[in-house]
């Protein structure tokens, strides 16, 4: 009896310890009730090698936060909460991207994370988000290998580059079926030796293999980033006598390679440098006459804003904020990443990481991305699979969308008329 009586005083204490332990394990749930604002953190490469694009991403994020706060904030659990954005400069380096993300989560106590730009930075940084179970939405890491890790808290709005290769081939296939290109059409496939280039190569190679011999690949070569000479490589392409010259390159290599390509007197029925083609810098460096008919595939184009819908609203808002300047896909992807995260928070109805993660995983909402909706399917590691839009440089300096047909504003030209001269 006395033994029993002695035990009783400990029972409430044990219960209290257990309750505290449960509360500590669920910080989001405990904190949500008395939240007076939502804190979202991000890093961007505002200095260093990726500074230019980092600046573009900042513009997209700033616009999204400005819009939501002008509207009084996000409606969460029946009340409007303002959204505070905490942005740090990761200096384009992996080490900073990782350490600053850790600081945002564990020192600044942000509720959610938005992504940085460039695949190698997103790949490193998203590990911090996963370890700390913080939803991480990004529009800057396109390499499929980032998503093959099957992280639960990582969501990517930028479609894989292999879809770019596939979209290019779909348009080429239409031209071949219309009799504008030879059958078989021989391909020279040249790609930068990066995750980006490997994804591009996969898109083209997969299409070629399924084509039943309509697109044999005669040259399949990669090159190192910022190469200094493409003479030997282009010589190999020239000797192969191909019809289609399909390259995946970043801007500096596009400029260097295409200068040598033009100087070598080369011409192919279809020429593409992947996502590169109509950039103002490239046109200035190469001359309009030398980039005519070059095909490029992008994740989003301001031309999508000519029709009513999310793209039109975004373009209008962007121009109003940034002095009439037209946005590029960088700003659009950043803006859309923030908007998707806001939507998930509102759908969750509470500032709770697990609830928001679940809403993101199940999300299917209208979007400004090509295709009109965005979703993060688990089978693709929660990477969006929206199609690309193809643009083709015209002699008047314009680069209209030529594919897919539902958003095209001009018909594509094939074969390249320059080759007939």
């Amino acid at each position, binding site marked *: 009896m006395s033994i029993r009586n002695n035990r009783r005083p400990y029972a409430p204490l044990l219960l209290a310890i257990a309750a505290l332990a449960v509360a500590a394990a669920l910080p989001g749930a405990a904190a949500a009730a008395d939240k007076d604002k939502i804190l979202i953190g991000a890093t961007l490469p505002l200095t260093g090698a990726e500074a230019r694009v980092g600046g573009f991403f900042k513009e997209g994020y700033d616009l999204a936060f400005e819009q939501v706060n002008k509207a009084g904030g996000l409606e969460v659990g029946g009340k409007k909460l303002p959204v505070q954005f905490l942005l740090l400069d990761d200096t384009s380096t992996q080490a900073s991207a990782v350490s600053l993300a850790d600081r945002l989560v564990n020192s600044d106590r942000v509720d959610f994370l938005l992504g940085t730009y460039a695949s190698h930075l997103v790949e490193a940084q998203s590990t911090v988000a996963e370890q700390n179970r913080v939803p991480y939405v990004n529009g800057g890491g396109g390499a499929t290998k980032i998503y093959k890790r099957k992280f639960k808290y990582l969501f990517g709005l930028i479609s894989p580059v292999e879809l770019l290769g596939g979209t290019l081939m779909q348009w080429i296939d239409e031209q071949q079926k219309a009799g504008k290109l030879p059958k078989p059409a021989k391909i020279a496939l040249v790609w930068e030796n990066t995750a980006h280039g490997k994804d591009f190569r996969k898109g083209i190679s997969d299409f070629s293999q399924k084509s039943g011999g309509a697109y044999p690949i005669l040259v399949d070569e990669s090159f190192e980033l910022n190469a200094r000479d493409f003479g030997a490589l282009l010589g190999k392409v020239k000797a192969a006598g191909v019809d289609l010259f399909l390259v995946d390159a970043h801007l500096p290599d596009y400029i260097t390679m295409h200068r040598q390509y033009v*100087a070598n007197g080369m011409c192919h029925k279809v020429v593409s440098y992947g996502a590169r083609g109509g950039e103002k810098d490239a046109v200035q460096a190469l001359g309009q006459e030398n980039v005519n008919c070059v095909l490029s595939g992008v994740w989003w184009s301001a031309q999508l804003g000519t029709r009513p819908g999310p793209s039109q609203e975004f373009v209008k808002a962007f121009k109003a904020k940034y002095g009439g300047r037209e946005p590029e896909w960088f700003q659009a992807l950043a803006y859309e990443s923030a908007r998707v995260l806001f939507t998930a928070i509102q759908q969750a109805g509470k500032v709770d990481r697990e609830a928001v993660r679940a809403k993101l995983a199940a999300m299917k909402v209208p979007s400004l991305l090509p295709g009109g909706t965005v979703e993060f399917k688990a089978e693709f590691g929660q990477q969006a699979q929206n199609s690309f839009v193809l643009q083709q440089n015209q002699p008047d300096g314009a680069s209209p969308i030529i594919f897919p047909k539902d958003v095209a504003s001009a018909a594509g030209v094939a074969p390249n008329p320059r080759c007939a001269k």
Partner: protein
Amino acid sequence: MDRFVDLVVSAVLLAGLYATMAYGLGLIYGVLRVVNLAHGGVIMVGAYMGWILHGWLGLDPYLAIPLVVGATFLLGVVTYRVLVRHLPRGAAGGPASLLLLFGVWLVLRNAAYLLFSGNDQTIRTAYSTRAIPLLGSYVSVNRLAVLAIAVVTPVALHLLLKRTYLGRAIRAVAQNADSCTLVGIDVERIYTITFGLGTALAGLAGLLSATIFSFNPGFGSGELLKSFVVVVLGGLGSVFGTGIAALVLAVVEVFAILVLPSYLTAAVGFVMLVLVLVFRPGGLFGQRVLG
């Protein structure tokens, strides 16, 4: 046969570029025994100078050569007088000079980021994509001009070193600085001029590279690595050796595509570097004193 001619033409033009990049590094090491890690930064500075003179003043990059060479010569002189001359001479100064000049490179690069942002820039002239037919192949006018300058530069350097008092003084200092002091040669002045000349050659390389490639503040690191390979292959301190080493490296890299995937051809040079360091540490053509 056409393919062979294409590859030979590519190799020779590429050799011109490599040689131009390497002369300055070789000259400074030959005389001061200092590995100029700021070489890549000065190549970047030369590129931006050419871009500014072309974009803002409309000056053709080849006409801008005297201005860029002059300005980078002054940059070299100031760098030497303010920083490098305070380093200990000989082996003791090795690590210190590496750190110091690497620091100079970082300062140059970050200053360029502040001034010009990280955007890629290019110089485009009416002849940027022009080519002339040669033996059934096409030769880029720009690359041909770079090759011509790469050939003229060592000849001019050779004449300077052999035929002028300054050149003889530079060679003498390279051989024995202490004895030079005894015979009245102002060794510090010779070091200053040599560092200026080497820096000016890096500026020239940057300007010429800018006519071919796009560039940003990170430009120059790849060029520095290639310059190292060329200078070591050619034998430290050998001007003509540098030119021939550039040709050997370019030929090996270009013809490697016949047996290797394209992305591996750039690694061939570094394999050669390791082999030369193991089997012929003095370089393919032996170590000389500015011969």
